């Protein structure tokens, strides 16, 4: 028996006991090939996936190294079947190569003929291939580069892409590190992205993903297309880029519903890109408008399906995806991997918190009990009405009053799903409300006022989930969530995670109606955060006043 920190399970999960003295070394050693799945307080779970192993191969690790690492850190012996499986899986990578051919353009080649024959016969792959050059190579339609890689991945023969990237139109971009500097993990993230060519960087909200994007642009030194979720976020990107880089306002264009500027650095919204006129995507030519050297996808977990397809045609350009959570509620994480690129960087939230880059957060689930009359209404309601009934119970309003009163003076956000409920609360608290119909201008005004401390209470709907930078927010009260969306919960918590000047920890309250679907959904939503190490404290509504 080896006194290692790692336990290798036969279902290909790796359990890392983090209180172990060698846990940090082990984490570094297994990070290149294992996916971090959960990181609660004592034991982190990693998973070995074919994708992860192939990524490791792509990064230059071989099966022997992976196996030796497992053997070195494993507390118990490693299941034999698993070792065999690792060797076999990793041996599948690189049998096929995508290469540039001097006369035929893009070709798929392999020195392993049976593999090539198998692939050529696969139904999904066949249409993407052209003329057979010889026993070992076949022409690939250039536009199918991404689709082909995706299809090959699905049939278990990932191709190693040697075809390289186009450099794009050069455009000097430098970081202006005056009064701030790139943090260690940000630098690591950019380096591992650049080394890998394309891929996704996963960092918690508030950990400075925009700066990672900016640093990637500086590294590329080329014209860049940035895709973001909405206009407010586009403006924030613009401000941040002007502040952090040598780019001037004139060099940055906004391509949204209202403006259609194309500049060396262009920020476009997902929405405008997916707008269709008479059945065709009207703004597709943006992708070809310049010879982009880099495409940045902000909040890549929200990337709409049509953009997936466009991305498939963009395989020759470098792509970086930024997100806090790679959980997609539609389960298409795999598509993100194969089209934008594999996960290049990931760090447990708690690690970054312990380094002081994000604020510690205290998550509290406040449970309210429905009054007898409402319980009755709830019990007899139609199933699709129940969630709304439980979420919008009047008892929550009292709790919100108490919580707001308790944190009076601290910048507080009240977040909810249902507009009626938000309006009602806004009225009770006499606070401004931001919802879908609020104009961009009004939104910016309110956010700015909040940022500068002019107002300390804001009631917001889900429009504020993403990419809205509210560094000062210290308390969030979630009165209703969108069903069981785990990434939304993470995003909402993320609003609070910017480090506070006084080092205070943030408070995240989720107000939940006991014994209803509201509580069930809340539990589902919290699972992701619990797995990130954010343990919820449960509290009864009656205890709020007692606590303070």
């Amino acid at each position, binding site marked *: *028996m*080896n006194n290692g920190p790692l*336990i*290798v*399970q*036969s*279902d*290909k*999960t790796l*359990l890392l*006991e983090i209180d172990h003295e060698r846990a940090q070394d082990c984490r570094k050693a297994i990070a290149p090939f294992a996916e971090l799945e*959960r990181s*609660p*307080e*004592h*034991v982190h*779970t990693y998973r070995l996936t074919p994708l992860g192993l192939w990524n490791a191969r792509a990064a230059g690790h071989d099966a022997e190294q992976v196996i030796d690492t497992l*053997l070195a850190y*494993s*507390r*118990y*012996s*490693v*299941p*034999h*079947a698993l070792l065999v499986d690792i060797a076999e899986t990793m041996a599948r990578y690189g049998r096929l190569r995508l290469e540039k051919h001097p006369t035929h353009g893009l070709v798929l080649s392999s020195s392993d003929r049976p593999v090539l024959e198998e692939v050529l016969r696969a139904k999904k792959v066949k249409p993407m291939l052209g003329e057979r050059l010889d026993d070992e190579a076949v022409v690939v339609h250039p536009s199918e580069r991404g689709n082909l890689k995706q299809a090959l991945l699905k049939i278990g023969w990932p191709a190693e892409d040697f075809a390289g990237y186009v450099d794009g139109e050069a455009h000097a971009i430098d970081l202006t590190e005056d009064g701030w500097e790139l943090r260690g993990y940000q630098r690591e993230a950019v380096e591992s992205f650049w080394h890998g060519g394309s891929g996704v960087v996963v960092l918690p909200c508030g950990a400075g993903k925009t700066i990672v994007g900016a640093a990637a642009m500086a590294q590329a030194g080329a014209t860049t297309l940035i895709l973001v979720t909405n206009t407010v976020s586009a403006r924030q990107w613009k401000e941040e880029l002007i502040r952090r880089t040598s780019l001037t306002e004139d060099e940055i264009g906004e391509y949204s519903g209202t403006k259609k500027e194309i500049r060396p650095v262009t920020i476009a919204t997902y929405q405008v890109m997916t707008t269709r006129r008479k059945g065709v995507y009207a703004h597709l030519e943006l992708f070809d408008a310049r010879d982009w050297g880099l495409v940045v996808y902000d909040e890549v977990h929200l990337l709409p399906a049509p953009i997936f397809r466009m991305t498939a045609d963009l395989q020759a350009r470098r792509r970086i995806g930024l997100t806090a959570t790679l959980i997609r509620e539609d389960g298409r994480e795999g598509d993100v991997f194969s089209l934008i690129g594999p996960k290049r960087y990931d760090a447990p939230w708690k690690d970054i918190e312990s380094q002081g880059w994000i604020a510690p957060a205290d998550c509290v689930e406040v449970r309210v009990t429905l009054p007898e009359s409402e319980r009755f209404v709830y019990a007899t309601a139609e199933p699709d009405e129940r969630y709304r009934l439980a979420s919008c119970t009047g008892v929550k309003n009292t709790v919100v009053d108490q919580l707001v009163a308790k944190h009076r003076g601290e910048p507080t956000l009240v977040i909810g799903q249902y507009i009626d409920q938000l309006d009602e609360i806004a009225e009770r608290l006499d606070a401004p409300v931001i919802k879908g119909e609020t104009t961009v201008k009004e939104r910016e005004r309110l956010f700015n006022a909040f940022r500068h401390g002019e107002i300390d209470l804001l009631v917001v709907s889900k429009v504020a989930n993403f990419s809205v930078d509210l560094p000062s927010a210290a308390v969030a009260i979630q009165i209703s969530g969108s069903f069981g969306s785990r990434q939304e919960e993470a995003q909402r918590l993320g609003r609070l995670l910017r480090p506070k000047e006084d080092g205070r920890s943030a408070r995240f309250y989720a107000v939940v109606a006991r*014994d209803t679907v509201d509580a069930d959904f809340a539990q589902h939503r919290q*699972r992701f955060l*619990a*797995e990130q*190490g954010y*343990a*919820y*404290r*449960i509290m009864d509504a009656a205890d709020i006043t007692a606590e303070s």
Partner: protein
Amino acid sequence: MAESSSPRTLADQFRSWPAADLVRLLEARPDLATPAPQDSAQLASRAGTRASVLRAVDRLTALELAVVDAAVALGGTVSLADLQAHVNAAPGAVKESTDTLLAMALLWGSPDELRTLSVLGEIVGTTVSGLGPSAESLLATYGPSRVTALARDLGITPGGERQRDIAAIAAHLGDPANVDELAAEIDPQARKILDHLERESTEGTVESTERAVSRQEAQSPVDQLLARGLLVARDRRHVAVPREVALCLRGGRTTRARVDAPPALATSPRDQALVDRTAAGAAFELVRHIELLLEHWGTAPPAALRGGGLGVRELRAAAELLHVEEPVAALHIETAAAAGLIAVGATEDADAAWLPTDGFDIWNAGSVADRWTRLALAWLDNPRLTGLVGGRDANKKPVNALVPDLERAWLPETRRMVLDQLVDLDPNLTLAAGTGTASLVERMKWLRPRRPAQRSEAIGWLISEAAVVGVLGLGGLSVHGRALVAAEDPKHEAAGALEPLLPEPVDHVLLQADLTAVAPGPLAQELAHDLAAMADIESRGGATVYRFTATSVRRAFDSGWSAREIHEFIAASSRTPVPQPLVYLVDDVARKFGTVRVGTAESFLRSDDEVALAELVHNPKAGPLRLRRIAPTVVISDMPLDALLPRLRELGTAPVVEAPDGTVRLARKDAHRARSPKHRPPVAEARQTARITATVNAIRAGDQAAANRPTNESGIVRGGPMSTMAVLRDSVEARRTVWIGYVDNHGSTVERVVDPVKVEGGWLTAYDHRADDVRSFAIHRITAVAPAQV
């Protein structure tokens, strides 16, 4: 065998052997001992039988076979020195092999005069070296003149007597100097032919061998060779290299290649501790997998196929359950069967299924090391070639696990031999990845050249099986594997060696806020059992990950745990503080548990008048009604409604009956009605009609027969069958209807009017007017025939 004087016969030799040598012989050739031979003479004759020698020869190494081959090639009676000179191996190795062969009684005699058993010439012959027949036997086909001519060509003065000349030629060719001289004379093309025939050990085919050519005149390459005796004609079309010549060409050795030592194994160094740890891990997995699988099969047994095997789908399900490949799952299942842990039994529905045996429970109670040892020993001596499972048999049918016909008698011995090769390796050396198994196959081929063809495949399987079982780790023999294969008392020593390598059971779990509990090692059995009652297992292996869910906690409540007990258990078994969400989860479930109660009742009574119900329940006469008040306004009874209702009325209440939908049903008595009788289906009628028609037909036919009865004797033929037959034949030809008198089965005489169709074999076949069908009549029963009077 230190006999100085040569024994006369094999029996003599046996008589002179000390008992220890006989013991060794019978150990090496166990078939000689059953039934026990009466004396040395019988033992000797049995030792020389073809069947017994064949078995013994199958166990020889390549070197030993080469020695036998050389002894045969040298005429069957040789000295040790001769063998050492001719076998292409170190003299010491040859001596050792010779001793082994003597001990096995395949050779006998003294070192100066070793004799082979005569059947060896037939069984082994010169197949190892591929040497052709001796010159003497080849020349036997030559006529005297040709012998004389050849002798003269070779510079021997022919003595005139053919036999002696042949012997002289043979002796001449046996001298390497002469052969070298002869070979130097021939041209390169002839040399090529000679070398080819010698290397390939084949005969040559030529147009004709009947060519009288002399050493001087010979022109064509074949002629040159024939004239010098380097080739000898076997018959008119075939030529062969005489054994003496071939021996000379091979430098006096029977084989060109050296045969002295088994090929070495390809090895690579590896830390023994790592090997042990890996193998112990595999051993632990094996035990865990079999336990898991069999516990699963105890509740959900897989059906046994009619032939006794396990279906493909069941195997796949087992592989999925265990997270292993199908061949590995098959090995687990076969090993469990070999250890007697599963057998075919009957399920509740009396279907044949594979079930854990009662032996499984005993096995399961043991320590991991003991359990492993039992499985590993079962595997070691299992004659079933489990590697075939999943493939296809000779008829292209898929081979299922646990089917009866996988047994191969040679397998246990081969398996042990393979592992013995690894026992001999130094610790810290393992089979090299990739080339190791191939080298092992080569070595086995040397050790048992005559063994079955499936071997090289089987050895590959054996090695991977041994890794799964945990005998090997990373290609090296583990310390417990070594004990299993080589120890005096494998049962205890292997378990003892494995014990310290196994993870120690842990007595705690780590609870986390995401409602998981991680047991960082194998849990103590009782703890594991209790934890499994209240949490779902999410991941298994060295550690176990449990997840608490509302469902799993409720399961614990269902099986009798109380909230307090669960809290106490969790707190006691956790090394870390209990996370608050888990406490809440248990309390939440506890709060909901039992809020709705269900039970059975035959009928209920409800009333808004609580006093009336109370009065009824407390009425002394209501005792037999078994009323129970479950709410102020509800009383239930386990009596059915129709029995309860009159009794309630007797007690003075005036109950109203409720229909299932809650509406009031009037208590009016139902008037009884009988079911209308069924109308007879028309089929019966049709049948009746048909029967009547048949009867009428019969009557009419009877009438016809009566009408046709001859009124006088004219035309009636009465007499023997011969005359009857004659009339009937006529009638057949004439297609005439006849009247016959016939004795039926009851002995009574009946009359029939028939149209004869044929007369054959003593039977008349005819259309019978009465039966309205063709019938057969025995001619000897026909009493009279007359033409019908139409």
